[in-house]
């Protein structure tokens, strides 16, 4: 089992020496004149570095939104009213956004369980949970499309809206659009990876179509890192854009 994976160093965990506790271990890792992230495969370390860069992208968007909102003399539209929906005759503030939040958190939970069963080599459960995650992600994107359609019908444009500061539309479409794009790509990759898992690629050592490498169940965890990050970004968008 291990032998046929030995040529794929990129996904291979070297047996890492145990770190000394606290700062001594931290300094020893960085000063070792070797790879610093011991015990962390390249795939996982690079995903973390990518997510760090993505953090800065979304950080810049949210800072731009803050700057626009703080510096305008025109009142900012009240998100609680803008995103309210009429349900059975009563106006529910932010109800669609709340449902979207719960759907995304549910998908994060199913993804975490998929990673768990992946490491147990239970490929049926792992694959099905990933497909469920992808389905919930697709639901999220669908609700976002509904929300965009509703706002566009109400006259929200990147340059104007009926309720107040014009920057509301541009920041809204920019931030939620970028986040929705991330979710969409996540769904696509989830489906691709779920197919590999269900087919048993990581047990049979089948080589990938694109990289010609043999994969490992760690791919599921790396996929999970991306998916949880998408959920994480939504936590910040929900707090700063919708609730603030």
């Amino acid at each position: 089992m291990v032998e046929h994976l030995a040529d794929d160093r990129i996904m291979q965990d070297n047996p890492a020496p145990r770190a000394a506790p606290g700062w001594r271990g931290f300094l020893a890792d960085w000063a070792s004149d070797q790879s610093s992230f011991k015990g962390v495969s390249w795939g996982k370390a690079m995903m973390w570095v990518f997510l760090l860069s993505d953090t800065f992208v979304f950080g810049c968007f949210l800072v731009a939104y803050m700057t626009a909102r703080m510096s305008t003399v025109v009142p900012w539209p009240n998100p609680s009213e803008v995103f309210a929906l009429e349900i059975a005759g009563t106006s529910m503030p932010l109800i669609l956004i709340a449902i979207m939040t719960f759907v995304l958190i549910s998908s994060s939970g199913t993804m975490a369980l998929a990673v768990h069963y992946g490491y147990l080599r239970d490929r049926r459960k792992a694959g099905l949970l990933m497909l469920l995650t992808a389905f919930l992600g697709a639901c999220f994107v669908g609700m976002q499309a509904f929300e965009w359609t509703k706002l566009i019908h109400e006259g929200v444009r990147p340059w104007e809206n009926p309720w107040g500061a014009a920057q509301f539309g541009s920041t809204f479409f920019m931030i939620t659009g970028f986040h929705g794009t991330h979710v969409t790509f996540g769904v696509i990759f989830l489906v691709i990876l779920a197919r590999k898992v269900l087919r048993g690629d990581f047990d049979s050592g089948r080589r990938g179509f694109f990289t010609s490498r043999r994969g490992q169940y760690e791919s599921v965890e790396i996929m999970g890192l991306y998916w949880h990050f998408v959920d994480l970004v939504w936590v910040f968008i929900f707090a700063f854009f919708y609730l603030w």
Partner: protein
Amino acid sequence: MADVTAHADTQHHPVKLYLVVWGWLFVLSAGSYMVDYVGVQGWLRWSLILVFMLLKAGLIVAFFMHMAWERLTLIYAILLPPLLILVFVAIMVAESNYTLLTRVMNFAGGT
């Protein structure tokens, strides 16, 4: 299945842990929605929103993304740089206040 504690090489933890974290994420999300639904205003609103947000973010990063079991080297390499965004925020708050001041002085009465 025998060993469910954290390995050095794989991230393998009991299902119950994930379910508990999941449950808390639901509770915290409901809490932040209630802030808006009830209509809490003022300092209480901002602090509640931020507390719920940070707790949720912490749970996701620590348990779902397994950061709690990673080595200190990776934790610091990934979690410290985003703090620079706070510096950026401070700079842009000053800039926004200045922009607002010039707008109020020169375009009094709205755009």
